[in-house]
Structures are given as C-alpha cells and as structure tokens.
C-alpha cells in the first residue's frame, strides 16, 4: 500500500520528513492493537478448545483449520469445476478461486457504479426521463438482491454473468437514488457561482455537479462493498460453479467445518483488502476530501 501511495504521488507533498517517526510510531501502535485484538479472539477460541468446551469437529480452532494448508487447498480448483481434486499447486488454485470471486465483485461494482451514476445524472438532466423512470426505480429499490437470484439465472444461466449481475443489481438502485439525492443537495453557493460565471446547464453538470457529488457517491460505493461480497457468495453458491461461495457450499455439503472456517478467513481478509484498496483509490481520485472524511484504519 505504501509503495502504491508513493508511486502515485500526484497529490500535494505529504508530511515533511521530520514528522515521519511519529507516523511510524502511529503505524506500530495501530498494528499492535490489531495483533492484540486478533490474538485475543483466536486465544479465547483456542482456550475453549483446550478445555474441551468447543467441539473440534464443529468449531475447530484456528490452529487446526489453518494448519494443513495443502489439505484445505485441494478443494480450491484452478479450473472452473468444483468437486474434482486439484492437480495444480495448492497456492495457485487457492489464488485462482479468490481471484475469480474478486473479479466478479469488481466487474459488478464497476458496472453498477458507472451505470447508476450515469442514469442518476440523466434523470436530473432530462426531466422527462426522471418522470418516466423514477417511480419504477423507487419501487424496485427495496427488493432484496437475493430475490433477484432466480431472475439472474433465468436470464444469464450459469457462469460469470449471473454473479456479476447480482453484484450490479445490489448496487444499481441504491446508487441511482443516492446520485439523485446528492444532486439535489449540491450547495446552493456552488450552483450560484457556476451561474454567475456564465455556465450553461451542461457545463454546470460537468464542472460543478459531478465533482461536487463524487465524494459522497464513493462513500456509498464503499458501504455497498460488503453487500456486494455477500451477494456474490450467494450467487456462487447456487449457480456459478466456482469461487469462494462454491467452496462454502462444498464445506457445508461435506460437513467439513475446517474448510468452512478456512474459507471464511479468506473471505474476511479479501474483503478487508478490498476496502483498503477502495480507500486508496478514493484518496487518489478525490484528493480534495480531507483524510478524516475518508476514514482511517
């Protein structure tokens, strides 16, 4: 992350070198609390196991489900078929599975973000379009993405498209409505400045409204990231044939609790890394938003 930050250093000059030690110290402190928090959680689990309170068959402690890495990884298949034993290296097939799920999330989020923001802008730009579409969108928005799953399979069958569609749909309506409400709450002063400077309606949208609403839209995107992960797992578990969701389903069907917890760990770490990545993108693209509003770890 640090390397990315330095490599892409297009923003303003960061803190001077003299402040570095305190930032280092801060990072160490944060890392310390992380270790302590995780250690406490895992430790309690291990203690429960050691005293025999947690049945190792149902709730295997971390050292058990993380121990035999290759044993777990055999279930992660580098091809798109689950059920056969993996022939490729353990690490490679594991990575392939995580990447497959991640790409679905990324594709769905990207499509959803671009389409919904565009639609939101068009709705506010062309009043007629708004009148025609808004009632329907408002009605469709509260439908749980899970309810769209059969529709996704009806339309797209099996494979990547239904999973991507699910992520897309989980974001689309929320984001469209959010774009509209953000446009409506753009500061009066900014709009007045645009008008005074002689901006046409098109210029007002392009140069004032879009940059003004982007920061909050990015926040909405980040909030929906975890939702997207939730939805992609459900889609994979039912109709895709590969990915982390399929492994979860496999663990359930074969009563493999170790595999289940192992996959959960993977999902947690991947989701967390996604959030960090989004935050970094946010910091690059929305350089004018103060870091406190972006959120720290």
């Amino acid at each position: 992350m640090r390397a990315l930050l330095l490599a892409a250093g297009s923003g303003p000059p960061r803190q001077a070198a003299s402040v570095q030690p305190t930032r280092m110290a801060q990072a160490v402190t944060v890392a310390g609390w992380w270790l302590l928090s995780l250690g406490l959680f895992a430790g309690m689990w291990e203690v429960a196991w050691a005293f025999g309170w947690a049945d190792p068959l149902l709730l295997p402690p971390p050292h058990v489900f993380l121990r035999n890495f290759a044993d777990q990884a055999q279930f992660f298949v580098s091809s798109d078929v689950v059920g056969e034993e993996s022939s490729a290296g353990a690490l490679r097939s594991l990575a392939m599975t995580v990447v497959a799920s991640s790409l679905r999330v990324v594709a769905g989020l990207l499509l959803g973000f671009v389409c919904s923001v565009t639609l939101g802008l068009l709705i506010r730009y062309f009043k007629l379009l708004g009148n025609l579409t808004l009632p329907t969108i408002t009605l469709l928005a509260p439908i749980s993405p899970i309810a769209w799953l059969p529709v996704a399979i009806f339309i797209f069958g099996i494979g990547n498209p239904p999973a991507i569609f699910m992520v897309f749909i989980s974001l689309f309506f929320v984001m469209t409505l959010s774009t509209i409400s953000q446009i409506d709450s753009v500061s009066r002063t900014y709009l007045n400045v645009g008008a005074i400077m002689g901006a046409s309606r098109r210029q007002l949208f392009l140069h004032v409204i879009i940059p003004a609403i982007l920061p909050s839209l990015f926040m909405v995107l980040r909030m929906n990231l975890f939702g997207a992960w939730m939805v992609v797992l459900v889609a994979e578990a039912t109709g895709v044939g590969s990915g982390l969701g399929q492994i979860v389903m496999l663990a359930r069907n074969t009563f493999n609790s170790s595999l289940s917890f192992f996959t959960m760990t993977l999902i947690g770490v991947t989701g967390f890394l996604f959030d960090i990545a989004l935050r970094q993108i946010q910091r690059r693209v929305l350089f004018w938003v103060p870091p406190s509003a972006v959120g720290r770890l």
Partner: protein
Amino acid sequence: MNPPLVICSDVGKAWQTADTPVVALEGINLGIARREFVVFLGPSGCGKSTLLYLIAGLEQATSGTIESGGARVTGPGTDRGLIFQESSLFPWMTVGENVTFGLKLQGVAALERRQVAAGLLRKVGLGDVAHKRPDQLSGGMRQRAAMARALALRPEVLLLDEPFAALDVQTRSKMQQFLVEVWRDSGASMLFVTHHIDEAVALADRVVVFTARPGRIKSVVPIDLPRPRDPRSPAFHALSDHLTDLLRDEVDRAFAEQERVR
C-alpha cells in the same frame, strides 16, 4: 451626465410561505453610477442581500425592473460579478483553476488561463498560490482569490454579499483597504452589502440605509470623506453616529419581529 450603470425601478420581491406572503423588498428606486462604491446597510433580514441577488440575476423580482448597462436583467451575466459571504471556491480545483473557471467556460486555452491566473492573483496580493488547494489558504486569502475569480471576467459591477463577515477584525480592516485598491484599479462599480456601520463608512461613496422588513430605502447618506479614511477621525465618528441613529429604530423593529416569529 452619463446614465447610471445599474438602475432599479420600483423593484419589489415577495414570496409565499406556508401561511402568509412575505414581502422582502418594496418600492426600491436606485441608480448606481459607473465607478461608484455603494454600500447597502441594514438590519439582518431587511432584504439587502436579496436586492443584491436580484441585481445579480440569481433571483427574479416580483415587481419592477432592473437594468444593468442599459439592458434589462433577466438572469446572471458576466457583466456582474458576485462575491459570496462564505468561501465559495470549489474544493476540487486548485486556486488557479478556481480563479480562471469563468474563462474555462468561455473556452480560453489552458496556457492563457494560467498566465491570467498568475496576473490576477498578483493583483489581489496573493503570490505563488495558484497550484494550492483552497483549504490550504486562510479565510482572508480565500476571499481574495474569490475576488480574483470575479475580476477575471472583467465585470462592470462587482456585487459583494458581506464578503468579510467571517473574518476576524484585523483581517477585515486589511481587506477593506485592499478592496478599495482593487476598486480603483479595476474601474468597476462596487455594490457592497453589510450590517457593520464602520465598514460602510470606511468604504462607501454612498450608503443606502434599509428599513426592517419589508425592506425599503430609508435614506441615502453620501460619505464625502477623503481616502484613505481614518476610523478615529471626528468626521468618521460623526457619520458613523448618524448612521447608527438611522438604524436604531430599524434594528429594534427587526428584533421585535424576530422575537414574535419565535
């Protein structure tokens, strides 16, 4: 004698609230000459800012007409610049980009814009800040950048809506001196809204005193003190006392009305 640059003829503004119509302005007749510095003075809520927005073309009068440079005002135009009370620079642009935003909209090339920005920023006493972000400037510097942005379009009249209200006293008096320089230099007319009596006396050729709501012109007081003006001189005090007397009843009435509304 040239005709006035800005002419308000019998201007009124009213709006409908949930239960009653509110009359903000009524029967405003006023002419502002070229290169004249006019201050609108009145209690809060008297409609002086509303009149400024009507002249800017951001709102429409409900009666009467406003002319600027011989043409009827129906909307905003680049002949009238406006400087807002709060910081109005776009946070997603550098200071330089903010200053030349109007030129960008007109399709002026980037290189020329950069040169113009540098020149304008120097003119308002800001040195090498074109590449900085607005939040890296102090409040006074931000208002000066906003001034540079308004001047970039070479307006004939600059409308200022309590531009120094958020600044501390020391910065405020510096900014006043500085505004007078900009005014002389640019050759534009100034229309300045404030509720500070001393600020009005320090700046104006003429002070237009407003009544409490509905806003009418109570009195127009010429300030014929030579510049630079010394706020401790007896003549300054005499004028300031005179305006205070004019305003006292209006402030009391405005206060009473606010209490009643609450």
